């Protein structure tokens, strides 16, 4: 179709717009919640041709219907009931659907993220069956009624037995049709992201919002790099537990902070479910850096050294600035690990506010591990 060419030009322009506004989308978190199964609707501020036109608020107009003078027709900036009659509702702001893959690609281009080299060739393949066709033999439970009927009808007509006044069709053995299947092989999800978050009293709503936004983009990027991806969520204060994503982003607890509890649980999860020989493992830990005791920090370092860092592709620690936290933990990590060096697969990032999210994503994903 001729329009395809124009359409791809349009998509190209849209991509450019998204790229230009990407940092703003990231730091305001405006794309989260607009997300469907594998698409994101992005509201674009202005993709129209400017022209001399009337100021609509100044202009007003003529409408039709019931109501007394002074009655409201709806609030806001937009004029009520725009759009042509007979064409359905008019659209106000342009919303463009972009697949998560495309979005990740734009993110990658804009932040200049390197592609990730998966660890080894450890793709695990799963098999499952799919009904794909029809065959003349099979168990009765898989009988395809419609096809069977069609065959019988064809045969009846062909031999001239069909009587429209009394349309009885009797299938015989040869008419029977059954569903058949074939086995499909597909690569299993082979990366896992383990998010850990400190939910102690010192982590406020803003800090959590930052974590939420950041994890959305990290997920988007990692998803584009692996066939499939699993996510696990751990929250901790003095104790740790595994939760679903909703709880992860909405829980608020109080009390002390023992980071080691989360690390222990993460190590446990990895040991139980994700042998590091087969999985690409990405633990992310977000905290305000205020750990309970020096002893606990020592336990953390030991856990990191022994299990978490060696088994993971990269261990990422994001420290969100909060008015209550001391921010000590990141210093401890830097003392004990050669953070920042090429060989070190432990990455630290300090996130001061929402504007710093972009930089932080770059720090986390920039190593290409």
């Amino acid at each position: 179709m001729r329009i395809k060419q124009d359409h791809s030009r349009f998509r190209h322009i849209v991509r450019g717009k998204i790229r230009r506004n990407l940092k703003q989308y990231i730091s305001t978190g405006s794309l989260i919640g607009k997300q469907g199964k594998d698409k994101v609707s992005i509201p674009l501020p202005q993709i129209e041709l400017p022209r001399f036109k009337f100021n609509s608020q100044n202009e007003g107009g003529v409408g039709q219907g019931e109501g007394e003078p002074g009655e409201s027709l709806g609030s806001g900036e937009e004029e009520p009931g725009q759009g042509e009659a007979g064409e359905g509702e008019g659209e106000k702001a342009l919303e463009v659907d972009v697949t998560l893959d495309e979005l990740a690609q734009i993110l990658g281009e804009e932040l200049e993220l390197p592609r990730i080299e998966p660890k080894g060739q450890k793709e695990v393949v799963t098999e499952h069956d799919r009904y794909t066709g029809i065959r003349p033999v099979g168990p009765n439970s898989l009988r395809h009624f419609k096809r069977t009927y069609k065959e019988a009808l064809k045969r009846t007509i062909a031999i001239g037995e069909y009587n429209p006044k009394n349309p009885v069709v009797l299938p015989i053995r040869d008419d029977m049709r059954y569903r058949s299947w074939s086995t499909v092989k597909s690569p299993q999800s082979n990366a896992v992201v383990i998010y850990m978050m400190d939910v102690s009293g010192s982590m406020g709503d803003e800090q959590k919002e930052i974590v939420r936004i950041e994890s959305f983009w990290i997920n988007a990027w990692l998803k584009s790099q692996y066939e499939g991806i699993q996510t696990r969520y751990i929250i901790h204060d003095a104790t740790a537990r595994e939760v679903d994503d909703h709880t992860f982003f909405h829980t608020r607890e109080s009390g002390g902070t023992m980071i080691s509890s989360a690390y222990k649980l993460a190590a446990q999860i990895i040991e139980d479910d994700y042998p590091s020989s087969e999985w690409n493992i990405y633990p992310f830990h977000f905290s305000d850096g205020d750990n309970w005791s020096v002893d606990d920090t020592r336990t953390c370092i030991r856990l990191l050294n022994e299990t978490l860092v060696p088994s993971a592709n990269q261990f990422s620690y994001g420290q969100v600035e909060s008015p209550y936290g001391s921010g000590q933990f990141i210093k401890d990590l830097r003392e004990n690990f050669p953070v920042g060096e090429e060989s070190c697969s432990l990455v630290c990032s300090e996130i001061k506010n929402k504007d710093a999210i972009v930089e932080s994503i770059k720090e986390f994903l920039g190593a290409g591990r």
Partner: protein
Amino acid sequence: MIQYLKVSSLPTELQEWRTKIEAIAKDEGLDCFDTLFEVISYDKMSEIAAYGGFPTRYPHWRFGMEYERLAKSHTYGLSKIYELVINTDPCYAYLLEGNEMVDQKLVMSHVFGHCDFFKNNFFFSRTNRKMLDTMANHATRVRRYQDMYGITAVEEFIDVCLSLENLIDIHRPYVPQNKTEVEERKQDLPDELIGDISALPRLRAKEYMDEFVNPEDYLEDQRKRQKETLEQQRRIPERPERDVLHFLLHNAPLTRWQRNVLGIIRNEAYYFAPQGMTKIMNEGWASYWHTHIMTKRGVVDGNECIEYADRHSRCTVMHKGRMNPYKIGIELFRDIEERWNDGRFGLEYDKCTDMAARANWNTNAGLGREKIFEVRRHHNDITFLDEFLTPEFCAKMKLFTFAHNPRANEWQIASRQFKEVKQKLLFQLTNMGQPVIEVEDANFNNRSELLLIHRHAGVDLDERYAHETLRNLFTIWKRPVYIGTIKSDRNVLIGFDGREHSEEGFDEG
């Protein structure tokens, strides 16, 4: 691609109905071009609709955007394009594949209404009826330019042109172009002759009468007038020019291909203008005829009644706060027909103040049908409403005006007074709802800067848009550009000099 190459001729059943409906239309007095129907799939329909009804247009992303919107809202079941008809000779109309028979019949009846309107309404009398070919030629030319100068360069220039697209003089095609203007200029007097009395135009008189027939003060008058004429001719343009695109085409420093592209945009803008000027009438007329043909001439089957009623009411539904041109149009045509059938017009009726007598007025004039045909020939939306909108009709249609209340930040019903509704309606339709903007001076500040004037009629310009548009105008004019307008009751001059926007007070004198 193969699937679109196949030319879908009408299936037999549709063909039969087509013939029948066409015969009925003819019998009712509709006078149409030959009409070619084609059944197409919905994404083809979306494509053609995105192209404004034409199968071939110059390449531009805007069509792709429109296509995405249409195709998406069709996929989600939000809207459906039932019909598309192009004003050409022969007239092309598209039917949507998979529609029910009653839909197709309705669309065909509707299309014949449009087609009659296109052929007979005065405002389409200057339309290029071979636009299909012209558009295809435009497309070829733009594609060639893209090959030569790059896709981006051409597309960006089209963006610029399109942003000025509404600056045309919609009445220009109906005014006989004054060719003598050019010739007049040739007869201009050279400068040194001003003041020479003998060269001034005089009334013919015998020599001895000259002094009386051409007295001194008369000659003085002539001299003044001549000076003014010369003064005026030094200005470019001589008179404010409302067809801004025409002016730019002839005066802006453009390259050849740019000039051609601008010409293409202008040409197409003029093609679409009459459709914008007659939206209410055109849709009203077509709806009037589809109801008439479908119900009074027995095209709709008994078992299709409900579907028919559903489709019809869907297209003439009144959404709160929105004016539906289909509804207003069809009702107004019916109202006119009724009034002229009952003889409710003319001096006697207008003078009658007895409400009861007015309500029961009936002289059995029976002129309704004749009148609506006359109306469809001579009027456009503005004159149509100006002439035939009555207070009774206004109340019956529950029309109101609305305005924005900044304090509550909401839109509110402002008034139901006939006078105000009518005024607002006419304002909205004037110049197709676009601000009237003219080229005032191409040598503004004596530095070949361009001055446009917005003929302010009560509503300010949208400032953000004005800034962006000036930016685009600058890329064409390549010297600072200004627009004089009124902002919050203050004369202002908004300018763009290539780097930044300026705004200052402005005395139009």
